[in-house]
């Protein structure tokens, strides 16, 4: 049967199992919106296209499904760039559809024209300009397949107006066929055996797990593997929740704001088993002195991640879940019975590091410490909620003090470090799970980057709880100025800020404020009891810092502890 491009678009989304679409209409996508008017796909109208992409990203991270956003041409499309770059750096499966001027006007500097395929080429896994309506169904199939398979990532599909209104016979392909794209899921058995031999021989092993563990749903396998072989585990920011935070084998996060014991353990290890991590500079510190004595095993689905920053001794290209499963199948037998004994000394050393320095803060009587707010949020929810963060100090305190037990509960812009990510991502997560508690831990700077989404949360009854750790500063930048720029606080003080309580009320949300420590818990309780979105404004110690801290470019052992 003949269909229009707009009808093919909506029908193909249904075929891909899309229930929720985050979008913002405009001139060239009007025909699509006209079809959506009668569709059972839920469309959430955001207040800025950047938020549509972050919301799709949050939706994808919590569900493991592909998040979808729809925007118009020109500025609608360019506003998605930050969202795409965020998802690209963190390997999040999303598909963004942008409208485009009709094909005969492309290149003519037409009204609301932007070369979005050109602009987004370096920040998408792949992108398409659909030039013929007959290619549309195939390209949508490929876009979803590319987004979710292999190392996941964002895909953009640009839809010119004449493709949207054009008509063709509609057949949705069963499978995507891409002759240049064949991700490797199975790890090489020989390499896996070599890795196990190295693990068996090691007396000071550390598992370093990243976001790949979450993406491949490998948390259970990782946990079982580490527990069976008594391997200490540290995770990256992106890997948080991939291993239970309360497990005695957990060292906490490593890197610039990692725990003392995680950084010491990695620096003294004789074997590092990296799983779905990419040796980012915020993790390694000075690269030449990272894990200097360790042999390195690296499991990653993306061959380009292997030996990019550090030379890897035993590379295993494959899906984390798959590889860990294979490893688990091979660690039976008497030679694996002695793990406790073999690693006793190492665990003793780690325990000594744990005692030597624990993360702590002194919560006094008068001034609220931001870490205290995070801990109270954890306590009040029992840790059983979805947490998103903005970027900066709020993000690091959340990472350090909100102990996560499960995967897919943690939304943070790790790679790109996008301020303004957390709130729309939380909205996306709440749209996926209306009954779960979703908290955005924010700063007073970051929250203002997408504050307009309060209207979206109110309109769609998405009861996200935003906790602003309000210190009146762009706190992380201020901290660097304090430490490395002689306390010259150049343009980091936000002298004028809105009254967040009134602002929440102006949007029809609930606004709450705490200025003293004893008010923190009641505000949280009140927010959690409220059925709608809440903005909590916590006035915290303005010059509190994030510690430990490894200065940029220093080795991990050179931590500022405080």
């Amino acid at each position, binding site marked *: 049967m003949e269909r229009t491009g707009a009808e093919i678009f909506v029908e193909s989304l249904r075929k891909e199992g899309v229930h929720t679409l985050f979008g913002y209409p405009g001139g060239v996508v009007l025909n699509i919106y006209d079809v959506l008017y009668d569709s059972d796909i839920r469309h959430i109208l955001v207040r800025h296209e950047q938020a549509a992409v972050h919301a799709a990203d949050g939706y994808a991270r919590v569900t493991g499904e592909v998040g979808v956003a729809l925007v118009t041409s020109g500025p609608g499309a360019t506003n998605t760039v930050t969202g795409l770059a965020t998802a690209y750096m963190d390997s999040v499966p999303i598909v963004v559809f942008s409208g485009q001027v009709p094909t005969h006007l492309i290149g003519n500097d037409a009204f609301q024209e932007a070369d979005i395929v050109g602009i987004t080429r370096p920040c998408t896994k792949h992108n398409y300009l659909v030039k013929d309506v007959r290619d549309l169904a195939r390209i949508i199939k490929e876009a979803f397949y590319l987004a979710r398979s292999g190392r996941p990532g964002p895909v953009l599909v640009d839809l010119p107006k004449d493709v949207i209104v054009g008509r063709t016979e509609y057949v949705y392909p069963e499978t995507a066929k891409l002759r240049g794209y064949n991700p490797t899921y199975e790890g090489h058995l020989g390499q896996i055996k070599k890795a196990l031999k190295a693990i068996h021989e090691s007396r000071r092993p550390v598992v370093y797990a990243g976001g790949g563990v979450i993406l491949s749903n490998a948390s259970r396998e990782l946990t079982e593997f580490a527990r069976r072989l008594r391997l200490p585990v540290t995770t990256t920011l992106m890997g948080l929740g991939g291993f239970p935070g309360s497990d005695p084998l957990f060292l906490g996060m490593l890197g610039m704001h990692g725990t003392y014991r995680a950084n010491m353990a990695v620096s003294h290890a004789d074997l590092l088993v990296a799983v779905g991590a990419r040796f980012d500079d915020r993790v390694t510190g000075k690269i030449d002195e990272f894990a200097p004595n360790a042999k390195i095993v690296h499991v990653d689905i993306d*061959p*380009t991640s292997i030996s990019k920053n550090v030379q890897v001794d035993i590379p295993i290209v494959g899906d984390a879940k798959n590889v860990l499963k294979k490893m688990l199948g091979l660690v039976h037998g008497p030679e694996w019975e002695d793990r406790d004994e073999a690693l006793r000394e190492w665990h003793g050393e780690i325990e000594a590091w744990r005692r030597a320095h624990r993360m702590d803060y002194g919560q006094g009587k008068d001034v609220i410490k931001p870490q205290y707010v995070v801990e109270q949020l954890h306590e009040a929810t029992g840790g059983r909620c979805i947490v998103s963060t903005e970027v900066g100090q709020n993000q690091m305190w959340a990472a350090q003090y909100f102990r996560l037990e499960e995967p897919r509960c943690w939304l943070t812009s790790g790679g790109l470090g996008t301020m303004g990510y957390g709130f729309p991502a939380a909205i996306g997560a709440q749209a996926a799970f209306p009954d779960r508690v979703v908290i955005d831990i924010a700063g007073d700077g970051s929250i203002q980057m997408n504050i307009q989404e309060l209207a979206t949360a109110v309109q769609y009854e998405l009861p996200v709880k935003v906790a602003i750790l309000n210190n009146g500063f762009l706190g992380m930048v201020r901290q660097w100025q304090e430490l490395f720029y002689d306390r010259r606080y150049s343009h980091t003080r936000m002298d004028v800020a809105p009254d967040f309580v009134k602002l929440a009320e102006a949007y029809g949300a609930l606004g709450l404020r705490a200025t003293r420590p004893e008010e923190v818990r009641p505000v949280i309780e009140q927010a959690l009891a409220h059925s709608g979105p809440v903005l909590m404004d916590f006035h915290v110690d303005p010059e509190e810092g994030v510690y430990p801290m490894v200065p940029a470019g220093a080795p991990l052992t050179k931590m500022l502890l405080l």
Partner: protein
Amino acid sequence: MRHTINVLVENEFGVLARVAGLFSGRGFNIDSLSVAETQDPTVSLMTIVTRGDDQIIEQILKQLRKLVNVLKVTDLHEGQYLDRELVLVKVAATAETKPEILRLMDIFRGKIVDVSPKTYTVEVTGGEDKIRAVLELLRPLGIKEVVRTGKVAMPRGMQNGG
């Protein structure tokens, strides 16, 4: 170290931009690049000459393979492939230089393809060393203009080099 890499790609718009963008975005160098359709009109072959240490070359190969439109990447090893480049050179032609230009073209099996009162334009095809040599010898005669195609390469014999 210099490497010659053959890249088979989908013959689609935007593919060259993806490959070029990969090099520029990651700070890799392109010394030369040539592209044309293969026997299969849906596939094009790029010959890229690049340089870098082993780790950089490994990254370049992996990053190229990661592109969805890239079908096959072959790092051609020294001595195991043929390469040719075509160069057009416009040389000052005076009473003294004309015989020398003709002699050089005879030696290098080049051709005079255009003649004007003051210049000869010559065409030379060959491997890297030959092109370098002919340019060095023509330079003292007064080169006005040079146009090079960049290298194309093919594995020798029965190897399937793509």
